[in-house]
C-alpha cells in the first residue's frame, strides 16, 4: 500500500550537508502497525515526514497504491493528507481557542451535524464525553493527546502517523494512549515513531534507525523469539 524506496533526506547545515535519512526503503501494508525506533537524531521522525508527504525526499520516492508523491502537485499531496492520513504529534498541537469537540471537527471531511455526533461518539469512546466543551489548556496532557488521537481518527484515514505520541506523557498515560492508537488497526495502518521500545511491543514490524539509516527490521515473531531466548 505505502512504499518508500531508497529515501534520502538531506539538510543543509551551513557549509555542511547532513543526511537525516539515508537510502531507506520501507513497505507498509493495510492494517499494519509499524514502529520506528531510535535515539534522538536518528532520522525516525524525518522518515515519518517523508512517508506522510509532509517533506519531499532529496532522493528516492514514496508511493501510495503505486502513485508517486513526486508526481503529485502540492495541492494533491495536501488533499491526500486530509483524506488518507491522520497525525498525532508529540505535542498535541491542538488549537487553543477551540474546544475539544471543535478541535476534532477541524479534521472532519464535512463540518455538519452528523459529524458533530460522530465526533461526540468518538470522544466518548476515548473517555472524553464529559470534556467536550473544554479548551486544550483545561485538559491534562493525556486528555489533550486523546483529543489529538480523535482528530487523527475522525475522518477514518488509511494511515495514522504518530510522532512520539507518548513523549511528553507519564508511563501509565503513555501506555493508555498507545492502546487507543493500536485499536485503530481494525480500520487502518499505524506508523508510530518513538525512542521507547516499550510502546511498540504490539507492533507488527519494528524498524530501528541510527544516523539516518535502518539498522534492523524485526517482525513480531522475531521479537518474541528473541525475547524468549533472552
Amino acid at each position, binding site marked *: 500500500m505505502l512504499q518508500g524506496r531508497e529515501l534520502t533526506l538531506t539538510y543543509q547545515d551551513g557549509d555542511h550537508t547532513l543526511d537525516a535519512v539515508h537510502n531507506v526503503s520501507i513497505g507498509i501494508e493495510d492494517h499494519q502497525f509499524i514502529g520506528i525506533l531510535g535515539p534522538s537524531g536518528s532520522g525516525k521522525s524525518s522518515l515519518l515526514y517523508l512517508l506522510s508527504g*509532509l517533506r519531499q525526499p532529496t532522493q528516492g520516492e514514496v508511493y501510495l497504491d503505486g502513485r508517486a508523491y513526486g508526481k503529485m502537485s502540492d495541492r494533491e499531496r495536501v488533499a491526500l493528507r*486530509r483524506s488518507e492520513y491522520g497525525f498525532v504529534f508529540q505535542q498535541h498541537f491542538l488549537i487553543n*481557542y477551540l*474546544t475539544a469537540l471543535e*478541535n476534532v*471537527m477541524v479534521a472532519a471531511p464535512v463540518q455538519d451535524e452528523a459529524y458533530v455526533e460522530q465526533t461526540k461518539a468518538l470522544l466518548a469512546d476515548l473517555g472524553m464525553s464529559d470534556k467536550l*466543551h473544554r479548551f486544550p489548556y483545561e485538559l491534562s496532557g493525556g486528555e489533550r493527546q486523546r483529543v489529538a488521537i480523535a482528530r487523527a481518527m475522525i475522518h477514518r484515514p488509511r494511515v495514522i502517523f504518530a510522532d512520539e505520541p507518548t513523549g511528553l506523557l507519564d508511563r501509565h498515560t503513555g501506555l493508555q494512549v498507545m492502546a487507543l492508537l493500536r485499536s485503530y488497526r481494525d480500520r487502518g495502518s499505524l506508523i508510530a515513531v518513538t525512542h521507547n521500545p516499550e510502546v511498540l511491543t504490539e507492533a507488527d514490524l519494528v524498524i530501528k534507525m541510527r544516523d539516518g539509516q535502518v539498522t534492523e527490521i524485526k517482525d513480531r515473531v522475531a521479537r518474541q523469539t528473541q525475547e524468549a531466548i533472552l
Partner: protein
Amino acid sequence: MNPISPFTYTLRHKGRALMLTALLALAVMGLYLLAGLFQESYVTPDYTINRYLSKFSLVQPDSGTTLDPAVAAQIRAHPDVAQVLPQNNVQIAVPNVGGLAFYFRLLGLHEADVDPVLAQSGVTLVEGQLPQPRTNGVALSQEIATALDLQIGDTFDETQDDDNVFFAHYADIVSPLEVVGILEGRVRLGIMSYEYLDSHERYRDLARYGLLVLARPGRDAAVDDFLRHTIRSSRTDVYTHKLLEEATARSQATLYVLFIPIMLLVTTAVTLVIGAINQIAFMRRLPELGTLHAVGRSKGWLARRLTLETAGLALAGWALGLLASWGGMAILSAAVYAPQGFAFNPLQAMALLLVTPVPLAVIGFTLFIAVRALRHMDAVAVVERGELSLEKARPDRARAENLPRPLAATTFYRRHARRAATLIGAMALMIVGTALLVFVIGSIWDGALPVLANLSRTSRISPKGLPLEAAEIAQIRAHPAVARAIPVTTISPLGLALPLIRDDSPLETYGVTAEDMAYLVELYGLELAEGHLPRPNSNEIVIPWTAAKNRDLQVGDVIGDPDRPVYPDAPTLPSELVVSGIFARAEDPAEDVWLSFMSQEFVNSYRGDWSPDLSLIIVPQAGHKAALDAWLESEIAGERRSVLTYGKQQAWFQEAMNTALFTFSLMESIIALVAALTLAGLNYVFVTQRRAEFGVLNALGFGRRQLVWRVARETLFITGAAWLVGLLGCAVILATLRYGLYAPSGLRLEFFHLTPWLFTLPIPVAVFVVSAGAVSWALSRLDLVAVIERR
C-alpha cells in the same frame, strides 16, 4: 553595553522597533498635516490678510456712509490717538488654496495720508507707483496681487466674476480699477484714491466711509481698548487688531471642536494598537521578566524598564513624525500656498499641541499594561515552567458553546473577544475620526443648499454695472420660452447663522409688487404659516420658517432697529422692518425655499440707502426651463449681466464641494495609510502568534492557499465589523449634529448623502488589503512543516 538597558531590547529587535516608531511617526504626521493644513486653509488667511489692523484701526458707521461727527470728535480727542485719517473703502474677496475667499479692504486715502499709512504699516512700494488722486489706480501688496493673479497694468471689476452666488471676488468693484503699484511689507495693504471713490457716482453709495486711527507709539493697546469699549456700538462698527484676534480665536476654537475629537480618536486607536502589540511582546517575555524578578529586580523596576523601552520609541516616532510634517508643510507652503499668496510657517503651535498627546498616551498605556501584566506574574512559576499561559488567566472561558464549523471566519475572534474589540474599536475610531470631518463639511454644504432652491423653478438676471433697460427686458419677455419676467429689487436685511460658519448667510429678500409677490409665492409653493403678506408701500416683510426659527422671530417683531437688534451684530437698516408673516416649512427638503418678500415700492423709497439694482426673475414656460436657461447663459450672460440658473449654480456648488472633498481625500489618505499600516501590523502580530495552528492545519491537509483564504476571511470579518461599528458611530454623530445643532437653528441636515458615507470606506479597505497582503506574504514564506517538526 549594559545588557539590561532599555535600549538593549530595542537594538536586538530592530524590526519591531522600526514598526512601532514608524506607526507613531505616521500617526503624528497625519494629525499634524491634517490640523496644520486645515488651519492654513481656513483659519489663518483671514487673519493674515487683515493684519494691517495691528498697525491702525478702522471706525465706520454701521449703515449709511457718514460717521457720526460726535464719535469722530471723541476719537480725535483721545490722548493716545496720534492721528486720525479719513478713509473710504470697498471690499474684494481674496481666494485661497482651500477654495474659500476672504474679504479684504481696498483703503481709499487722500494722497497726503498714503505715506504715513505706509510708514506706520512698514510697507514700501517695490514696483510701479502709488495711486494718483482721482484715478482708478490701486497699489496692492504682492501677496494679494498673486492670490488674484493680478499684475501692474491689469484691471479688475465685477464683470470678471463668474455668476456664482457663493463665490464672487469683485462684487463691489462696479467700475474697473487698475493695478498701478506693488507693495511689500509685514502686513498686506490695498491703497487707492479717496477722491476717486468719493467722486464716482456708483462707488459713492457702495463705499464705506470712516476713520483710520493711528495710535501713539506704545499706546496701541489703549487705543484698541478705547475703540472697542467706548466707540463700538450698534451704530458704529470698529475694526481693531484685538477684535481680529478674537475672531481668529473663535475660528480656531471651531477648529479645535473639530480636531480634538479626531485627535482623541486617532490617538486612542494608535494607543490601543501599540498597547496590544506591547502586551503580546510582554507575554512572550515573561520568562525573561520572571528570571530578572527571580534574581532580584523588583516588579516596579521591570515595569519602568518596559515603559522606558516604549517611551524611547514613542518619542523617536514623535520626533520623526514632526520632522517629516515640517518638511511636508514647508514643501506644501513653497509649492502650493506661496504661489497663491499664502505662504506659511511650517511650525504650527496648534498642530504641535494636537500631536503631543499621542506619544504621552502610548507611554501611559504601556505603563498600565506593564504594571497589569507584572502584577499577576508568578516569578517561580515562570522560571519553573518557562512561561505563564495567558489563557489560564481567563476563568470566563471555562465553558464555551461548541461551534459546528470551528474553522469559520468568525470563530477566532469570537474566542478572542478582547482582540476583536481592540481591532474593531481602533479601526472604528479611525473611521469615525476621518469621516467626521467630511460629515461636518457636508453638513455645512447642506445648510447652504436651500439658497439655490428657488432657482430650480425660476432663473435670475442681475445687472453688473449697467442697469437693465426697458428694451432689453422687452426682448427677454418676448422669448417664446419665457412665461413671465418679473422685476425685483434684491436686498439682504437679515443673516442666517449656519452652524460652524463664522459669517452669517444673507437671507435674500425680493422687493416686488403685490401682484408679483402673490404670483411668486404660489410659484415657489410657499404657504403662510401665520400672518399675512407685506402690504404695498409698507415696511412689512414676510420671512421663511427657517429664518424665523434661526433668529427667533415672531410675527410683529421689528428688525433693523440699532437699539434693539434681533440678534447680536444684526445689521442696522435704513428703515425698521416689521415681520408681517412667516412661511410654513416645506415637508420636502428639496422644496425648501429661503426667500423673503417686501413691498417693492417701499424698498425703492430707500433706494439711496439700499441702492438696489433691478433684477429680473425669469419664469419659464412649462417644460422649457432647460432650453430657456441655455439661452440665458449663452445670449444674456456676459460682462454686464449676471445670469443665475440652477444648473450652473449647482455645478459650481458641486465643484466647490468636490474641491473640498478632494482636499479631505488627500488628508484622509494619510490617516488611512496610518490606520492600514498600524492595524495590519497588529493583525500580522496576531497571525504570527498562530504559527503552530497554521502548521498543524497544513499537516492535517489544509493547503497554504486555504490558510491564506481563511485568514483573509477572518480579516474581512473583522474589518467589516469595524466598518459597521464606524458607520454606527458616524450615524450617532450625524444624529447629534442634526438634532442638537441644526434643528434648533431651523436647518436641515440630510442623513443620506452618499459622499460622506463613502469616506468611511478607505480605512477598512486599506486595512483589509494591507493586512491580508502582509499575512499572505508571511504565510507564503513560513515553513509550515518546521512548526510541527521537533528538529
